[in-house]
């Protein structure tokens, strides 16, 4: 979602959108999974609990829910839950690995105006993609995209940009277009399993700068909320250009706990449980959220880009420096300052 910095000072009665990780279960074992997904975990919300949460989100007029996981389509009641949410007028975006699409799911998505599908693909060739998502996944994912294409579904391919696939971004865009999809790129963040491969797969400074130039030259590439630390002024209307955690968005995990965002699902950032409190109570009153809304890295305030990025991504800053009150380490300006001082 896009907006502008001054608007984020206006308090919202509820998030405009939120991420709902509906399950930890996944049939893949991607190296960079932000949720460390694998097996379904005991204690995940059942359908009745999910419907009650959906009712609360509809009451406070959340506009859009971005479903992820794990793999959402592995949740047995996922389609009925989607249908229930759509009947309340909420738009949904589903992040799927594309390998477990049933005929029922494809039919459900076809011609559905309230559905956006993002299929994850991390390379334009099997050699690159499968290094991240697992042996043999490339062709299974492409098959999934082909099953969704041409069915009047808002469709995009989502790539987490790493040092492995950085050289294939142009090919990925062409591949997406050939399949009738748009390309969306996401930022690699050291959350979940990604912490273990962060140093190996992160972009270096020159790659970050090259990525900034590429994104700023091609406004057809979707970025969601990912790359605001490097976004140019003329691109800032195309995607969320600052951290919207606790202001525009938040995250619900498979167990009903609420967090500032999907990348900060750590115990110290848990704002509350929907099994114990209402969503509105958590959104309005959680101390974690109040603190996040005041977050403003002191070292960033004098930066000429502060009004553009407002300190960058707190999740990346926290996992690298264990300090929310520190600037985004991958901000273009900060990278030069920190490497010069030898901290990184």
């Amino acid at each position, binding site marked *: *979602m*896009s*907006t502008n910095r001054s*608007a984020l000072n*206006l*308090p*919202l*009665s*509820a998030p*405009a959108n939120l991420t709902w990780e509906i399950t930890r279960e996944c049939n893949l074992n991607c190296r960079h999974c932000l949720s460390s997904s694998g097996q379904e975990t005991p204690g995940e919300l059942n359908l009745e609990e999910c419907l009650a949460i959906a009712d609360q989100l509809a009451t406070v*007029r959340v*506009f*859009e829910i971005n479903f992820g996981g794990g793999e959402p389509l592995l949740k047995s009641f996922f389609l009925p839950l989607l249908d229930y949410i759509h009947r309340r*007028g909420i*738009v949904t975006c589903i992040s799927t690995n594309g390998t477990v699409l049933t005929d029922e799911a494809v039919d459900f998505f076809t011609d559905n*105006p309230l559905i956006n599908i993002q299929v994850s693909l991390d390379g334009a060739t099997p050699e690159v993609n499968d290094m991240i998502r697992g042996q043999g996944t490339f062709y299974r994912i492409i098959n999934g995209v082909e099953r969704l294409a041409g069915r009047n579904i808002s469709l995009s391919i989502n790539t987490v940009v790493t040092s492995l696939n950085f050289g294939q971004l142009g090919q990925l865009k062409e591949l997406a277009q050939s399949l009738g999809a748009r390309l969306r790129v996401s930022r690699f963040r050291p959350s979940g399993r990604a912490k273990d491969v962060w140093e190996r797969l992160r972009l270096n400074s020159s790659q970050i700068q090259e990525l900034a130039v590429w994104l700023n030259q091609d406004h057809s590439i979707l970025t969601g909320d990912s790359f605001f630390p490097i976004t140019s002024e003329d691109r800032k*209307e195309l995607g969320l250009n600052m951290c919207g955690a606790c202001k*525009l968005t938040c995250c619900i995990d498979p167990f009903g706990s609420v967090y500032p965002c999907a990348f900060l699902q750590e115990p110290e950032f848990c704002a509350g449980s929907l099994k114990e409190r209402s969503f509105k109570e958590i959104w309005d009153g959680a101390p974690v959220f109040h603190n996040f809304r005041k977050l403003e890295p002191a070292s960033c305030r004098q930066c000429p880009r502060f009004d553009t990025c407002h300190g960058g991504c707190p999740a990346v800053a926290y996992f690298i420096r264990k300090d929310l009150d520190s600037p985004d380490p991958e901000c273009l300006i900060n990278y030069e300052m920190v490497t010069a001082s030898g901290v990184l």
Partner: protein
Amino acid sequence: MRGILTDMIYRLAKGVQVRKEDWGLLFYSQAESKIYFVKSGDRLHPLSSDGTFQSDSICCNEADAARISSEHSVKNLITYLMERDILVNEP
């Protein structure tokens, strides 16, 4: 004093939702995946039960001088929202 607003009727464009906040209206455009913060206070709201509103009914309770100023603001606001496909004219 004669107002500047016409009897135009407006409604939300397809794929657009709106929510009332204390400071005004928050619009959501699904097609653009964009939200618009409109600091309109209590103007342009509530929409009537059929999802429309008439511009000349917005300021009818204000004194003439304030009404003209308000009408200018509302007219500019409506124009801004129509240019961005947030509002459409009712035929």
